[in-house]
């Protein structure tokens, strides 16, 4: 890979993960470098979300290790683990905004808990984040009053509030209209450019993958392995693996030959 000299912020080593006897991924290794946008993709049930839970330490892997900034997340416990987890900002699929707090309070929540800033300073920080995510008008709304796209942007603002420069987004564009999804992609790119944020994005929206991803990592539930790890355009045009080409060219499975011999 070209970026060997770049700093690796998330490093997955020989990971085996799954539930009980069901192994979803075995002996998988990959790196995420600083300021990179990496997309994790794969068909439904291939373990994308589970991989993300392993990366953020919500679900312990069966074997192998996950390193955050060179420190093992799997081996850490207690305050050490919490400190590593705080380096990661996470946007969950549903947004997971706290229903009893309004948008501003949600974004301020991590600042309230982990910094000694004054209320005015915290409010300013939170409002600037919301402004960056084009949510300035909605700061006093409750999460229940937000649309899907607003909910996701508010969730990203909250994930970033503690100055997290590694963001993990679980299906950010799922259920969004194409324009909102494209705006979200633009936001992701601008956060990377202006704040140097590293992104790990779980998605299978092809348009979004081509728009944002430096690298795509594709999981396959049958071989339980990573079957592709390269730029989306390279994978689409030059992958040796038929499954990968099929996915990136959005082709359905081959229809079996017509037994009646008619075209």
């Amino acid at each position, binding site marked *: 890979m070209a970026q060997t000299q770049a700093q690796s912020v998330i490093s997955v080593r020989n990971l085996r993960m799954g539930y009980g006897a069901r192994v979803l991924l075995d002996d998988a290794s990959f790196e995420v470098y600083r300021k990179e946008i990496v997309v994790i993709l794969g068909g439904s049930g291939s373990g994308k979300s589970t991989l993300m839970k392993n990366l953020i330490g919500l679900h312990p892997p069966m074997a192998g290790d996950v390193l955050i900034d060179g420190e093992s997340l799997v081996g850490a416990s207690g305050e050490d683990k919490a400190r590593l987890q705080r380096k990661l900002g996470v946007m969950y699929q549903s947004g997971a905004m706290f229903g009893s707090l309004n948008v501003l309070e949600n974004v301020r929540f991590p600042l309230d808990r982990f910094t000694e800033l004054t209320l005015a300073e915290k409010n300013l920080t939170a409002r*600037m984040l919301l402004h960056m995510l084009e949510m300035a008008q909605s700061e006093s709304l409750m999460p229940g009053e937000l649309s899907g796209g607003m909910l996701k942007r508010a969730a990203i603002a909250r994930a970033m509030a503690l100055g997290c420069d590694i963001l993990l987004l679980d299906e950010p564009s799922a259920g969004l209209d194409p324009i909102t999804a494209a705006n979200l992609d633009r936001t992701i790119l601008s956060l990377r450019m202006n704040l140097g944020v590293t992104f790990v994005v779980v998605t299978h929206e092809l348009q979004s993958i081509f728009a944002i991803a430096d690298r795509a990592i594709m999981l396959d539930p049958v071989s339980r392995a990573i079957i592709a790890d390269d730029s989306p355009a390279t994978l689409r045009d030059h992958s040796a693996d038929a499954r990968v080409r099929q996915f990136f060219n959005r082709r359905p499975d081959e229809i079996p030959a017509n037994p009646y011999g008619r075209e």
Partner: protein
Amino acid sequence: MADDGRLRASGRAADRGDAVTATADGVRVVLEGRITAHTAVPIWQSAIETLTRNPDRPVVVDASGLEYADNVGIALLFDLTRQERLPGAKVQLEALPPNIAALLHRFEPHDFVTGASTRRHIRTLEEIGRATARQVAYLEELLEFLGGCLRVLWQARSRPGAINWGDVLDVATEVGANAVPIVLLVGFLIGVIIAFEVGLVARQFGAVIFVVNGVGIAMLRELGPLMTAIVLAGRTGAAFAAQIGTQKVNEELNAISTFGLDPIEFLVLPRILAAILVVPLLAALADVVGLFGGALVMASFDVSFLQFCTRLLGAVTAGDLIIGIIKAVVFGLTIATVGCHRGMRTGAGATSVGLSATSAVVTSLVLIIVIDGLFAILTS
């Protein structure tokens, strides 16, 4: 990891011997290292201090040593530039990394001038007025809801099958049969307690036999229906509000409406009918075990079971029992209506389901006591 962020400003830094130029025509504030959520607090504080200490001199913020600023750091930089200063005493950022400069350009100094708390202070009297108006409006809304339910019930009479009696039976089982143990326990204990407390006082005056009158009237007219209603308000009112509220949050109510069904007919009527049928039965049960509990206690005051029964039949009338039962019907209607209404009015999200359940219980309890008072006046 690189070192933490630092600030070197004229006054404070000079104390540390880390001198920074504070010439007659300007002050330099030097930012260094990484300014993040975890390092920003002292930097922010001393930077603002430096600015306020030099209100009449231009300030240059030198960011050439700044390695990294996260969003808190950027908020800090923005906060420095938006401070109100005397003319000729501007704050100027120098040697900003281009990506941060591009970010700061997106914000206008007046973007966030609204203070931390824009809430208008509401005085006590105004608050009382608003609260009263809210309660009155709520009562109106509740009566309207009840009226709507009765209208649907009236319309349903002409369509056989409009009311799902299977549902009514299911709800009645849950509300009634499953509540029998707790109603028995509460009714019995109340009978025992009343008889014992009143008996102790009455014995001092040699009037133990009159305790039977007291227990009889109190149980039948007041405590039987009241205790049943209080138990059911907590048990059933909250359950109705939470069930319907969750269905609302899950958009099940919308699904019911799109099938052309009326949520009131489908969800509310069975609950109200079941409650009306079941609460009087439970209240009658509470009456019986309460009197039985009273009789047990009276035995220890040398009033035999037979004496108790004879005396009781002389003391209470069928009217007392009937008033109690009518009350129980009204309480049942109140609990079910309030529970269902709160459920139907649930907002979005898990929190609002909890709020609906809580307010269903509180509102039912208050209304039950008020209605009980009205009954006392009307039947005196």
